[in-house]
């Protein structure tokens, strides 16, 4: 499939947050204001892309030749965890400015299911290396798009009169559902 089509699909028709409902914990908890949502989004784009770029060769160059494909769940999660730690140390030391925006979000991301999800999807869908990287990057951007839209809506909600029991995560889940319905409008434009 053309790279552009993959990118487009991950943004709109197959948005990782709104179609697959992956990465919901940070989506609900970090979407209170625009600034932190943006920080989280950037961190997700970064980690998704880098982990997919490393997990792809691990699968195709190591696991497939050795017929140990079934290990990919475990190995992917180990590489993600290790990589996030490594990236954290490097940014903290050499890129203090980036650390201020990304730093606090990086450890949160290790356990984000969307990151593992992207690595697993690229295998299931038999993407080439270039396709995988674009897919991962696009998924990150798509997730960021969703969380930024959500935080925009939640900023407006501060002035809304919400029933007491729904304040916070409750209303956020409902909005996520409505946003997902809206995004369904794009479905059918692209097949995966």
């Amino acid at each position, binding site marked *: 499939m053309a790279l552009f089509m993959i990118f487009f699909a991950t943004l709109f028709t197959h948005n990782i947050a709104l179609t697959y409902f992956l990465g919901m914990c940070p989506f609900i908890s970090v979407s209170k204001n625009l600034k932190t949502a943006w920080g989280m989004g950037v961190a997700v784009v970064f980690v998704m892309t880098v982990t997919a770029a490393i997990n792809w060769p691990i699968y195709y160059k190591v696991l497939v030749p*050795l017929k*140990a494909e079934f*290990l990919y769940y475990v190995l992917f999660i*180990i*590489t993600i965890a290790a990589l996030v*730690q*490594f990236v954290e*140390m490097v940014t903290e*030391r050499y890129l203090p400015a980036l650390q201020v925006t990304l730093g606090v979000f990086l450890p949160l991301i290790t356990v984000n299911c969307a990151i593992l999800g992207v690595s697993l999807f690229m295998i299931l869908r038999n993407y080439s290396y270039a396709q995988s990287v674009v897919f991962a990057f696009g998924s990150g951007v798509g997730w960021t798009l969703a969380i930024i839209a959500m935080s925009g809506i939640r900023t407006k909600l501060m002035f809304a009169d919400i029933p007491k029991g729904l304040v916070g995560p409750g209303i956020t889940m409902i909005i996520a559902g409505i946003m997902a319905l809206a995004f369904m409008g794009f479905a059918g434009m692209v097949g995966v």
Partner: protein
Amino acid sequence: MMEVLIPILVMCSIASGLAVLLAVADKYIASYGECKLIINKDTEITVEGGDTLLSYLIDNEIYMPSACGGKGTCGYCKLKVLEGGGTVLPTETPFLTKHDIAQAVRLACQVKVKKDVELGIPDDLLAAQQFKTVIEIIEDLTHDIKRIVFKLIDPEKIEFKAGQYVQFCIPETTEYRAYSVASQPSIADRIELMIRHIPGGLCSGYVHECLEEGDEIFLTGAYGDFYLREESTKDIICVAGGCGMAPIRSIVKHLHEKGSTRKITYFFGARQKRDLFCTEELRAIEKEFPNFKYIPALSEPISEDDWDGEVGLITATMQKHMKHDENQEAYLCGPPPMLEAAVKVLTAKGVSKSDIYYDEF
């Protein structure tokens, strides 16, 4: 045979490869060499950089208050980082006011030490110590409040001001909870706390369900700006609800011992008679110490209570009994809504805002 061995080998080699990468990075990238912590321009501590300020301070026996164990969720570990702290992190902003930021206040558990750091720590925090204690007495005060007496083992004595609090270190964790000292400062070798059971609460649950006489517990302290202003000569209004009794009891007993000439009126709000405690003790002080008056009020007495005292919210009782007088200061302790309402009554009765001290539980 090979089908089993190969995956194991693959798994182990990739995992150990990553582990080696991290170990090397930890040694060379995440190490910042020796850094100096300069406290209040006079004390200097040298540490191996890379960890948080809070952990170095605790290692060096400076017991900053911290309730969450350094997770950045309590906002108690505030101190001034005058130099070398970097920019304020997004994890800190929810706890810092504009005034704090202008004063270079930071959360010690969030600031990583990467170079020499200059700190400003108030003297009373520097004086806080860690105490090894043994539980001497546990007794029920009401259906959900226990009184606990701790005997100090090491150090054997504590200095504090009536109204201050200590922190209870929950065994096997790094979490702490604040509890106001209920005993008066003249008892230096013991500490009394009054702890209310909060359903699902970690520390209060531990105290009510697991703690036994003879157990060893670590306390740190004393902390807090909520303490009796002894230099003042103004009359005193105390207002408390629930465990707010603890610091007020300390203040009242201290004033009684000193034979203070200041007039003290203590309003205590409770729901029903079963929520009242220390009543006999306070009534006995009242008899011996004419300057002191204790006025409990029940908001929802039931018929079995057979209550002939004040009924209604504590604020209504305050309205009724307080005189309009600017020469008064107030000590409030209890849940935030009660404090807010009480402050309104006090200001209406002429008490200046700067003479109102309070602790939110």
